[in-house]
């Protein structure tokens, strides 16, 4: 299993997001006051400052906005992975998320800007929180 770095707690903004990951849900927030989409998670709306937010579950479908393939990372959690893709994913509900791309044999050739991807929750050796990553849809 992968050995990605686990989120660390207590951390008040991101707790609910990672509780969602454990439940197999990709969670995001919308603002009750201005309908803005809030991501990454916070306790206030970044458009209007309102604290009346609703947590929602994304369908997990999105598009690669941009990406890179990391060839060198000295961190022990990633040193043995070989080349791996990181990306910003534009989810269909209107939020942009940093993540990784899996399910490709050669990320240097198979990942493209604009490609459609779907979230999956990847179990980890490093802890009990599965990490949401994306694979080609």
């Amino acid at each position, binding site marked *: 299993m992968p050995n990605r770095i686990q989120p660390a707690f207590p951390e008040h903004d991101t707790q609910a997001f990672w509780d969602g990951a454990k439940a197999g849900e990709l969670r995001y927030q919308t603002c009750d006051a201005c309908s803005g989409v809030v991501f990454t998670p916070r306790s206030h709306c970044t458009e209007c400052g309102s604290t009346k937010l609703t947590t929602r579950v994304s369908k997990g479908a999105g598009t690669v906005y*941009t990406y890179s393939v*990391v060839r060198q*990372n000295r961190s022990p959690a990633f040193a043995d992975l070989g080349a791996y893709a990181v990306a910003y994913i534009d989810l269909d509900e209107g939020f942009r998320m940093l993540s990784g791309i899996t399910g490709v044999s050669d990320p240097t050739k198979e990942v493209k800007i604009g490609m459609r991807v779907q979230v999956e929750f990847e179990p980890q050796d490093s802890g009990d929180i599965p990490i949401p990553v994306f694979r080609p849809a």
Partner: protein
Amino acid sequence: MATQERAAAIVGIHEWPKRLDPGVSALQIKAQSIGRALEDAGLAWKDVDGIYDAGDGEGGGGLGLAPYLGLKPRVIDTTSVGGTSYEFHAAHAMRDIAAGRVNVAVLSYGSKAASQRIPIGTGGPRSGGTWQTNMESPYGVTLIANYAMVAHRHMHEYGTTSEQLAEISTATRAHAMRNPDAVQGMKDLSFADIREITVADVLDSRVIADPLHLLECCMVSDGGGAVIIASKDVVKGTKKKPVWLLGSGEATAYKTNNNDITSSAAVQSAPQAFGQAGVTPAEIDIAMIYDSFTITVAVMLEDLGFCKKGEVGDYISGGRLRWDTPGGPALNTDGGGLSSNHPGMRGIFLLLESARQLRGESTSQVAGAKLAVAHGNGGLLGATHAGGTIIMAAD
């Protein structure tokens, strides 16, 4: 031509010559550089009444540095916004001098990044639980990968190529080869092949994070320096030609749910600085732009207004950025972070080389250089970053 009142000027400079220096501390680099810069200006230690510090070195910050230096400044500014902290400091010194609160401001930097083997670009993500790291650390996004994602999107939207970006590496290396301190630094840091490089050399170097190659990445060195900024009354008694500060701009930019990743904080800071100075990009002779990576310079040339968004690939072709190409601007004539020095926060070197050019002291001196822009980047291009712009003029 510049319309801004000339109220504050760089009057003293010093750049730490060594790029690998295990025998000193970062604070010693700062203190000794301040002494040399004051000497360069013809000012005395106790003339300093403003300290601007990014908190670098061993226990820095205004509270740490003042007692270490043995000074009691009237203004302490510990603004710390990464590599562009020094452009912010210059901006704040301009304001404080204009307000009559400071007469002699000192900015300093010291770092042991090379001798302490700090893996700045390829180090792992920071651990710990913050609202940002909890959403980033699981994915292994290295510092370089943030910039690489900007480069990919720029290529996707505008057809920019690695060949075009490589022009930035070849120009800065050409400048470095004319700078004896940069050449010695590359020797001390055990660079394999110390010579001018070609576009093919850049493309043949290994990929670190697609699409960025090794020769598109800045080095990791030791280093530091100091800048003395003084009021116009103090300028009258200094030794060298003053380098006037005409305009400043400060901004931050960060990821949102729909931001254009190919635009940087310079979109906000540059118009403020150029507007205050009464100067246009077309008038600029010297462009000192934070070259952490080639893409950093490419994006900022556009955002500073040298060319339109998306057109930088064509703009920089044909050697335009070289010191001896007429029509300028000349880019990073000291050799830049790509080929001279990068101890982690390069912003002070942008001010130092701007001052050398506007005094006529550069090793790649542009004949008759009158106007320079220094634009720094702190944090991560494509993610959370700060941009500071300073416009300077020769006396």
